[in-house]
């Protein structure tokens, strides 16, 4: 994947206003090994090529210090617009300031920035993590009530990335909000929320903690994996603890096609909900916003935040979302 070299000297600004020859600098917090991020970037690239723009992607590999250097590099290369998938909300403050000083508009995607930095950006494109989590939570709660009845205790454990990581907090709190909003209708149900486990967003790291928490809590009812990436380890952990099966409800986040397929093939299996955050759509939208930013057309993103529409995939609707060639669920209308 070679990006495009050089600044926007080849195209006239009229061309660029339509997207032709526009150079978009894209700073990713990570790509290697993640389909999600790859799909995000691919969405961006595809949208860009459809309007004649190019995307120059740098990968910070999960290191904010390096991401700052990357953004500086993109500014040095003279890109027309920046799309930033920030590694953390405030760490890239110096880069936002540098972009502002260089007169380069900034679109952020997938991960939000601190409110203090938002005024210096054009638009934030993402799913609403809380709301998306809530979608999964609500479905999981419904299925739980169906399965376990409207009385008794429901033990829930969530597994996220790292202690003190924003994403984990947003996705988990959203999930619990959705979950509680459903079960609150049944006063006979008490929700017992176990301390959150962390799997570094990796399948192998998720296995041990889930296995052990399930061993110590054989009456576990709902497991919420905050990323599809960890599901391999989560499933294996539950299997090893001997509680994987009809007695458990598994909810997940991301909308990965593997999970969709699982629900389609085994509609009564543990996996009952997967909140989809549509990386492809986030990527295409980000590039659309980048073009708008170049044209200083704030009407395209009036609130500086554009939440893409997200959905939750369940065994009931899995068939309609399943596309063998995709890796993540896309918005139905964009297909």
């Amino acid at each position, binding site marked *: 994947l070679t990006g495009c070299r050089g600044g926007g000297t080849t195209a006239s600004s009229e061309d660029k206003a339509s997207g032709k020859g526009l150079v978009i600098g894209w700073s990713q917090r990570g790509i*290697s*090994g*993640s*389909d*999600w991020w*790859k799909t995000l970037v691919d969405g961006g690239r595809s949208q860009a090529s459809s309007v004649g723009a190019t995307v120059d992607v740098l990968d910070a590999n999960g290191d904010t210090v390096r991401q700052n250097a990357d953004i500086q590099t993109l500014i040095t290369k003279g890109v027309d617009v920046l799309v930033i998938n920030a590694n953390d909300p405030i760490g890239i403050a110096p880069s936002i300031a540098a972009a502002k000083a260089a007169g380069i508009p900034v679109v952020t995607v997938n991960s939000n920035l601190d409110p203090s930095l938002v005024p210096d950006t054009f638009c934030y494109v993402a799913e609403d993590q809380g709301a998306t989590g809530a979608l999964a939570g609500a479905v999981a709660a419904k299925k739980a009530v169906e399965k376990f009845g409207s009385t008794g205790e429901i033990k829930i454990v969530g597994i996220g990335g790292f*202690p003190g990581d924003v994403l984990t907090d947003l996705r988990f709190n959203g999930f619990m909000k959705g979950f509680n909003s459903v079960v609150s209708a049944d006063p006979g149900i008490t929700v017992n929320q*176990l*301390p959150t*486990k*962390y799997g*570094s*967003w*990796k*399948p*192998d*790291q998720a*296995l*041990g*903690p889930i*296995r*052990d*928490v399930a*061993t*110590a809590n054989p009456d576990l009812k709902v497991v919420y994996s905050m990323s599809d*990436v960890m599901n*391999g*380890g989560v*499933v*294996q952990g539950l299997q*090893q*603890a*001997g509680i994987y099966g009809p007695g458990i409800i598994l909810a997940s986040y991301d909308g*990965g096609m*593997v999970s969709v397929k699982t629900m389609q093939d085994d509609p009564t299996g543990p996996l009952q909900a997967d909140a989809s955050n549509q990386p492809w759509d986030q990527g295409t939208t980000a590039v659309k916003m980048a073009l708008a930013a170049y044209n200083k057309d704030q009407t395209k993103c009036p609130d500086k935040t554009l939440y893409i529409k997200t959905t939750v995939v369940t065994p009931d609707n899995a068939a309609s979302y399943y596309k063998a060639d995709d*890796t993540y669920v896309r918005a139905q209308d964009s297909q």
Partner: protein
Amino acid sequence: MTNNTLTGPPRSQSPQAPDARPATTALDVVKHLLPKSYLLLVLLAIIIIGYYVSPDFLTARNAQNVIAAASITAVLAIGQFFVILTGGIDLSVGSTLAMSTVIIALTLQSGMNAGLATGVTLAACAFAGLINGVLIVWLRIPPFIATLAMMSAIKGFSYIIQSTSLIQITNQAFINAFSSGSWLWVRNPVAIFIIVAVIAALVAKFSTFGRSLYAIGGNSEAARLSGLPVARNLLITYTLSGFLAGLAGLIAAAQLQQGSSLIGVGYELDAIAAVVVGGASLMGGKGDPISAVIGVFVLATIINIMNLVGISSEPQLVIKGAVIIIAVFLSSAGGVQRISGFFSSHFGRSRSAAAAQ
């Protein structure tokens, strides 16, 4: 000048008759393979603590799970043991493990049969290990740096060949062979690591290759001057470490039913810590593979207990650090002797002081 042919001097040494009893009955073999007892005592103490603090700990299921999960690290640690025995270190095994999962997933996906795919994967991982060896032996890059660079390069390579993130493994023959199947009531991954451990122990103790590794780690110049093929054996050792990392990767891939470059991060450090907890010296020439495996179980059991009693993951990191320190202090840093020495000298001194009054 004539030769002064004097009678030889009476030998000043009176050789104590060395024990000539043959040392190779089956019982002796087993005795030889068993590690120094107190590391086992440490493990036993941990198990007893686990029994008291968590009712779920000493259940058959949990024990099986801990052993099965530890089998990955144990296989890695055995490879690492041989490397450390020569005085080297292999930081690339975590990346090699990840590469192994990716290669097996890709080859299975392409429709290759499980046996062939396994062979291809192990060969590729052994080859990565061989590159480590070549860098160390021929380019004379220090092992730490050579394998650190390879850690990065192998990771990059497996990202490249992976191309998408998660490649599912659906081949049941493979999953059965390396994860879910069992053999005489022993789960396959456990059987694999037991076989590897026993072979390793026999190789270390009774083979010329193992003997020469002890010599290379103990004094590589003496080994060279004694005509041992130092370069060749180092190449074999790093190749073996890559091979075993590949084998560990197969177990991991079968367990997670996927190939992914994301896994295996930091496993090399766990393996190294286990080997040193098992009494080996990072300077080389000391230790045995069975102790390294016990080292793996010491660390794995403690984390399992902490998870079972619900200690949250932040203090777990602190406790893990402390356990490594204590275990290494007691094993390779000679802490047992020093503590007993301290007490006896303290006790002795106070006794003599009392006597002086």
